């Protein structure tokens, strides 16, 4: 086949051709880890599509062949039969960028296939919910809007035939390469405009199948501290993006150990194997269906700040890296972040976790409106807590010591303003609601005036005043810098970043 490759251990092409995500899936296959059967439509096919406006000759036929192959491998029929096959479709460029199409789940759940899935599982509610999810995720992908937004018109235009749905989805992935946001991102970061994206098609595994199903994300080490403990979130009986989107309250990863010990054991084993391959901390996305674990994505952990220092020194101690390699793993820029105040475990009563949008820790009393923030700030620090922020909140933001919002990402208005004012900010705390003068979070209700602490690096929101430390990785940092001085031979007094820079310079000379 010219335009399509099965995702398997034997694929030799680079991420330029099959995209970074599919490249990760190939790695998972090679490590012998469970990956749902699938294929990838390559970036050259996308480039042809973008050049001519239509699929290159032969691609339609190859999609049919690849789908038939997927049917054979799964023992299922796409869009119908007694055992219907549903797939996910994801974009996968060489580098991920904002504005690209996100995931379409449950594609192929036509009316007929949904009825068949209900009959096969004996669970019509599951089948119907999965079809709803397909329609809303497809409509949101086609319109580039949030999955929860109303899309009745777009949903009505989704074709009923499964093969037509797949064609439309692949076209949508390819077209999303040229959204204005993606173009802007490429211009800012010097990424060539003509690379194109791959599209990954994989047999669905359903995290919403039953009580022994779910979905999650995991780091092999704690991305906040670098400590060698698995870290992440899990959601039982939910699908795909729910964990990342913050749409539902998640459980800490360890909840798997009690509820699904086999999944937990499989996950720990996989994290070990992936770490051994990368020789670095790693990140995975996974789903488990009826107690069976599957991996959907993998990449290196890409830790920053104190966590990067800790992982590099630990890996050197474990004999995974040489000291020289450990030094090169840490960028001098990371050291500036080591000095940012952070919430430190233990004894932290974490209410929820959002996205850290402006680093630093803010401790203050909850204020739910700008007026309250201004009024209360006269008596001591306040944290402004809002569903999202508008220009109305500027005065509240100015009065507050930090800001917490339920909606929005690191590029939201709240984040932009918080950074402009240098205030710690946590945004997109999914299970936070603001009702009048109280907030509900982590299953608890807090009135205005309750003291909370937010960590704008990790995104943690904690009750009360947990211990806050600046440069918690001191022991690790000192060791790393001692190694740096050994390499550079320079023991004069100078800044930490400079000591590391000198070591890098010496290592690069050798």
């Amino acid at each position: 086949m010219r335009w399509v490759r099965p995702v398997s251990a034997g694929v030799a092409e680079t991420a330029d051709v099959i995209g970074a995500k599919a490249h990760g899936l190939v790695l998972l296959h090679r490590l012998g880890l469970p990956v749902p059967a699938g294929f990838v439509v390559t970036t050259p096919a996308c480039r042809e599509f973008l050049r001519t406006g239509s699929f290159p000759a032969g691609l339609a036929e190859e999609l049919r062949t690849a789908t038939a192959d997927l049917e054979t491998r799964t023992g299922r029929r796409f869009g119908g039969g007694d055992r219907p096959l549903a797939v996910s479709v994801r974009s996968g460029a060489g580098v991920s960028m904002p504005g690209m199409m996100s995931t379409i789940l449950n594609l192929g759940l036509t009316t007929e296939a949904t009825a068949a899935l209900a009959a096969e599982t004996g669970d019509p509610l599951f089948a119907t919910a999965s079809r709803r999810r397909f329609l809303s995720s497809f409509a949101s992908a086609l319109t580039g809007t949030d999955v929860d937004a109303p899309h009745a018109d777009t949903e009505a235009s989704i074709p009923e035939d499964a093969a037509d749905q797949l064609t439309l989805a692949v076209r949508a992935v390819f077209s999303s390469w040229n959204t204005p946001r993606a173009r802007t991102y490429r211009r800012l970061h010097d990424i060539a405009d003509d690379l194109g994206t791959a599209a990954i098609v994989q047999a669905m595994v359903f995290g919403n199948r039953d009580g022994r199903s779910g979905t999650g994300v995991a780091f092999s080490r704690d991305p906040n501290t670098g400590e060698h403990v698995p870290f992440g979130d899990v959601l039982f009986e939910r699908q795909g993006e729910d964990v990342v989107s913050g749409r539902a309250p998640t459980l800490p990863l360890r909840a798997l150990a009690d509820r699904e010990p086999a999944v937990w054991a499989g996950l720990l084993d996989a994290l070990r194997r992936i770490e051994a391959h990368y020789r670095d901390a790693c990140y995975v996305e996974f789903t488990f269906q009826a107690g069976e674990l599957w991996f959907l994505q993998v990449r290196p952990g890409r830790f920053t700040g104190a966590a990067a220092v800790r992982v590099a020194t630990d890996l050197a101690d474990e004999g995974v890296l040489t000291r020289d390699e450990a030094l090169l793993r840490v960028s001098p820029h990371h050291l500036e972040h080591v000095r940012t105040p952070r919430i430190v475990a233990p004894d932290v009563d974490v209410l929820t976790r959002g996205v850290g949008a402006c680093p630093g820790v803010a401790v203050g009393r909850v204020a739910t409106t700008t007026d309250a923030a201004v009024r209360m700030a006269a008596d001591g620090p306040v944290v402004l807590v809002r569903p999202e922020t508008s220009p109305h909140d500027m005065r509240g933001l100015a009065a507050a010591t930090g800001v917490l919002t339920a909606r929005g990402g690191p590029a939201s208005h709240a984040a932009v303003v918080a950074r402009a004012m240098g205030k710690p900010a946590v945004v997109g705390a999914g299970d936070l609601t603001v009702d009048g003068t109280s907030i509900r979070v982590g299953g608890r209700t807090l009135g205005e005036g309750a003291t909370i602490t937010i960590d704008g690096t990790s995104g943690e929101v904690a009750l009360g005043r947990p211990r806050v430390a600046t440069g918690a990785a001191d022991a690790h940092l000192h060791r790393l810098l001692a190694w740096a001085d050994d390499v550079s031979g320079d023991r004069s007094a100078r800044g930490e970043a400079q000591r590391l820079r000198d070591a890098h310079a010496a290592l690069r000379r050798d």
Partner: protein
Amino acid sequence: MTRPPETGTDLLVLHALRCCGYCGVARVAAATGLDEPTVESDLIDLAVAGHVVRPSGAWGLTEAGRAEDARRITDELETAGARPVVTAAYERFLELNPELLDLCTAWQLRPVDGVPTVNRHDDPSYDARVLDLFADLDRRLALVCADLSAVLPRFARYPARLTAALDRATAGELELVTDDIASYHTVWAELHEDLLATLGIPR
């Protein structure tokens, strides 16, 4: 074709507080294009009517003022028959909004060795690249604003203020991008709020 009616100064002042939140006379003057004595005089009349208050140095709407603004702004919209145009413009605005936010983020944070790092504005070529993208976005927003001001002339203030902010930023006043009450980001956010308020869409 008749010219669409100009909004009265008292409604301009009232609506500026609706779109900016609590603020001082100077900011209302900048938002409305009125001189400060006119703004102050209107604010005093509005305060007497119970529509605005000045609890702590800044002016803001009362509940009654918010309701009065909603009533008069809706009335203006319907009288001008402008709802279809404003609705269409709002949809185009929403397509541009994520780009604005991406650009503000790029202005403030810059990945260095893969780490988002505060942009210290010590690399003029990077800043120039970001400002070029702002200018490109501004040209596309200007088309949306032109449609708006053709039916509701008060919207003409926005492209003027936005372009002025960008011109000043390009000339070296870097705070005019995201860090000032006259900044591109702030004026953009006011326009966003204005469109929501004008169409009666709750946040």
